[in-house]
């Protein structure tokens, strides 16, 4: 058997034209245009599709969800060097960098470093930390050049993707080994991105197999303190990964992928030193240059059997290991996921997907200096194991050429609240080939996390009323799930071949949102002074007052807003994208006692002021003569009241020159005209906020 690679005869101008097509999944040429393409062009064309909404491939224009796709070209041309930074492109997404390695990323409200209503998946592997109910964004990475697309669904995706997909689903999808053959070297350096490099090699094996391996490493400089000095919260990471796919038989696809990583960050910690409480500043210590080492790895095996175009089965197994050596606690977590999925067409116009999954998570916790995990009797417990079972189904019904309806639901059994049921109904109306309206109604839940139910933190949260005091936080085993009833309406239209509009409106009703209230017990189990009105605990040496708090399902909230995307291909060589997000949050408490009500009123304000009301992006991509490329990205966000961060506008620029198809030089400047800028702050984690600085880097990318 003779195997030939596709000839590299395509003129680069042609490639550009085709790339422009790939960027605009909805802007497909009509049939005659494709017929005018040469065969060479046809076989190198990308088929635009999205998978996250319905778990099967679907045209973006037809998706009944507020989906936004960050393409690989968006990533490369924006010059972003991490997944969190790429997410700033998404309409309505609020991305705030808290320090060198921590982000607050959220959509449709509840903007927080422990933002717990977003489900984040990388190649189908969930990266939501059930211990701290957030995402350790600093270890969620891959070769940026290998990201095929990031599909972001704003709004609930729980019926298909499971609990915690309440306000959105972020699905990072990497390129197949078959699409990343050959070698790639990427090297860069700059003032904040001190040095980074990556190498990838892809090859074939057997008659149907492809593989790739990659290695990347980077060293990022620390951010700045408010006074302009170096915060020393540097961030170093090394990562190696592989992917292989082949067809053992004609109708079977097997994919294995995985990666391992290790690295160090040095976040500034603010803690109350129990051992030396009188060492100045009331015993509140700032720990700088404390290494926080993290390492981990994961392995995904995916088997798919295709019976026909209308039926397939797949099975996915995921092993994940994560170890976090934090000064406040050492966390080791392993999880195993198994998921079965079956797609078929029981009737001519029904597309049915159903599946079942099981997850077991093991935790080992040690060095519980400031964050303790406790059993139900209040004793330190250094391990736990949780199971999650679920079952889901979706029926996607094509009623006729222009109407489509889908029903989906997920039944889930979790370790905290037991059974949960999350249904969803969607309706799509293709008014014309180029105009789509959709509506969706869904129920989703955010199940309580380990941190909210069994974790006790002390000596790391401070507040002050005149003089500083410690807030100790006790988990509550009796928490219920937070519930969302969501209503969405969407409109998309393609105007001619150069302009596209995508507008989504949403109205969300939340119940039982978790809130902080006074606890009736001190962290050591003793009774507080003044237990009725304003409980106070005295620590051993009385150097600081301590207020015991716990969590209750005390709040309801309504959020509503609008998200707009406008894409304009102004010229063949010039593309513009504008996005805008508007958000309103209104919280109310559900307390019946006056004492509880006053505590919850403070929480209402907290929830209402977490997020910015307005966000916007304007991106311009120009393909200039002689293979020069110029990109501009302006983004703006209004103020964050809770974080005490005023609104700002940021500017990024990228200039690139392609020497030939395989060699590219670029210069990227980020956060221009702001010497440094705070993007977030908060008190609960014990981490200190640091500020982003103006930065630049140069990069060379060579494929051979």
């Amino acid at each position, binding site marked *: 058997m003779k195997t030939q690679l596709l000839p590299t005869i395509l003129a680069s101008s042609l490639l550009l034209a085709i790339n422009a097509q790939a960027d605009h999944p909805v802007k497909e040429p009509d*049939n005659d245009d494709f017929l005018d393409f040469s065969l*060479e062009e046809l*076989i190198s064309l990308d*088929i635009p599709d999205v998978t996250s909404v319905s778990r099967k491939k679907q045209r973006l224009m037809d998706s009944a969800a507020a989906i936004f796709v960050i393409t690989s070209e968006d990533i490369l041309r924006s010059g972003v060097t991490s997944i969190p930074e790429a997410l700033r492109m998404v309409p309505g997404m609020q991305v705030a960098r808290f320090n060198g390695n921590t982000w607050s990323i959220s959509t449709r409200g509840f903007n927080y470093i422990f933002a717990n209503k977003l489900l984040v998946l990388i190649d189908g592997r969930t990266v939501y930390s059930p211990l701290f109910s957030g995402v350790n964004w600093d270890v969620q990475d891959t070769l940026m050049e290998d990201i095929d697309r990031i599909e972001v669904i704003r709004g609930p995706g729980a019926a298909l993707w499971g609990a915690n997909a309440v306000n959105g689903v972020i699905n990072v999808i990497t390129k197949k080994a078959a699409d990343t053959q050959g070698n790639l070297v990427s090297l860069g350096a700059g003032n904040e991105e001190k040095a980074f490099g990556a190498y990838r090699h892809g090859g074939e094996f057997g008659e149907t197999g492809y593989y790739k391996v990659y290695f990347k490493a980077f060293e990022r400089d620390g951010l700045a303190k408010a006074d302009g000095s170096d915060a020393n919260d540097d961030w170093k990471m090394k990562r190696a990964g592989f992917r292989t796919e082949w067809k053992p038989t004609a109708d079977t696809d097997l994919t294995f992928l995985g990666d391992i990583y290790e690295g160090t960050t040095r976040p500034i910690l603010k803690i109350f030193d129990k051992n030396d409480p009188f060492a100045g500043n009331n015993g509140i210590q700032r720990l700088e240059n404390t290494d926080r080492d993290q390492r981990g790895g994961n392995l995904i095996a995916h088997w798919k059997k295709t019976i*026909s175009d209308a039926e397939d089965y797949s099975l996915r197994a995921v092993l994940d290991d994560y170890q976090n050596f934090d000064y406040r606690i050492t966390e080791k977590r392993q999880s195993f996921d198994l998921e079965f999925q079956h797609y078929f067409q029981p009737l001519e116009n029904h597309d049915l997907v159903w599946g079942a999954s099981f997850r077991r998570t093991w935790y080992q916790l040690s060095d519980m200096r400031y964050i303790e995990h406790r059993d139900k009797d209040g004793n330190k417990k250094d391990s736990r194991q949780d199971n999650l079972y679920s079952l889901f189904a979706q029926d996607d019904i094509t009623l006729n050429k222009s109407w489509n*309806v889908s029903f989906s639901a997920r039944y889930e059994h979790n370790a905290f609240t037991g059974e949960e049921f999350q249904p969803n109904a969607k*309706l799509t*109306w293709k008014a014309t080939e180029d105009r789509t309206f959709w509506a969706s109604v869904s129920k989703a839940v955010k199940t309580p996390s380990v941190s909210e139910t069994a974790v006790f933190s002390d000596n790391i949260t401070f507040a002050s009323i005149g003089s500083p005091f410690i807030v100790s936080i006790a988990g509550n085993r009796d928490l219920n799930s937070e519930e969302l009833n969501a*209503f969405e309406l969407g409109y998309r239209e393609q105007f001619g071949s150069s302009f596209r509009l995508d507008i989504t409106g949403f109205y969300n009703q939340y119940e039982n949102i978790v809130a902080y209230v006074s606890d009736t017990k001190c962290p050591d189990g003793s009774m507080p002074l003044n237990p009725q009105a304003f409980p106070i605990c005295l620590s051993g040496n009385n150097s600081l007052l301590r207020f015991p708090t716990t969590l209750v399902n005390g709040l309801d909230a309504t959020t509503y807003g609008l998200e707009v995307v406008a894409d304009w291909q102004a010229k063949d060589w010039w593309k513009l994208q504008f996005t805008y997000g508007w958000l309103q949050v209104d919280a109310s408490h559900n307390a019946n006692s006056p004492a509880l009500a006053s505590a919850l009123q403070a929480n209402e304000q907290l929830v209402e002021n977490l997020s910015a009301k307005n966000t916007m992006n304007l991106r311009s991509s120009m393909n200039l003569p002689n293979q020069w490329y110029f990109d501009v990205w302006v983004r703006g966000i209004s103020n964050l009241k809770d974080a005490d961060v005023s609104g700002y506008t940021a500017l990024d620029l990228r200039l690139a020159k392609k020497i030939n198809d395989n060699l590219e030089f670029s210069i990227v400047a980020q956060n221009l005209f702001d010497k440094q800028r705070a993007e977030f702050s908060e008190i609960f984690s014990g981490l200190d906020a640091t500020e982003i600085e103006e930065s630049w880097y140069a990069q060379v990318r060579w494929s051979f």
Partner: protein
Amino acid sequence: MSVTKSTSSKAAILGFIIATLLSLHAMTVRAATSPEDKIKTAIIYKITKFISWPKRTQNLTICVLGEGSINNELHKINHKNTMGRRLSVTHRDANAPFDKLCDALFMHSIDNATVKSVLKRLEGKPVLTISDLRSFTDYGGMIGLNRSGKKINFSINNTSASGADLNISSKLLKLAKTVK
């Protein structure tokens, strides 16, 4: 969009959806064509330009076996010209005498057993067989359209083609991902 008015109540929306579902259920169904269908159709059309048949007639007939959205696209190339011949696209069922009626046969969305039996019947007959069925060329089919990642490429079984007296241009063989 009558849905807009119903958002105030979940029950109303569900009711609306169910009512729509019931009222529209009887209407005919035609699946929308996807970009993939369009690209596949264009590839099939282009491929005919690189093949020489032993007997040249004014018409070049492409028969289609199998149901699906791509058929709408294939019908759009009906009456187009390819190398001075007029294309005619017709839909056939599995028992049709393909060797008498067709110059090319595109099979899709049908089971492997049918494909194999059709290929057996056409062995040595000058009918260009094309399919997007996996491993089509391994079964003895001549041109297989394969999806790899986001792209569609094709493989050629030149042994089958030359055995059927069909001549495939070297340019096409070069563009194929695999040739046997």
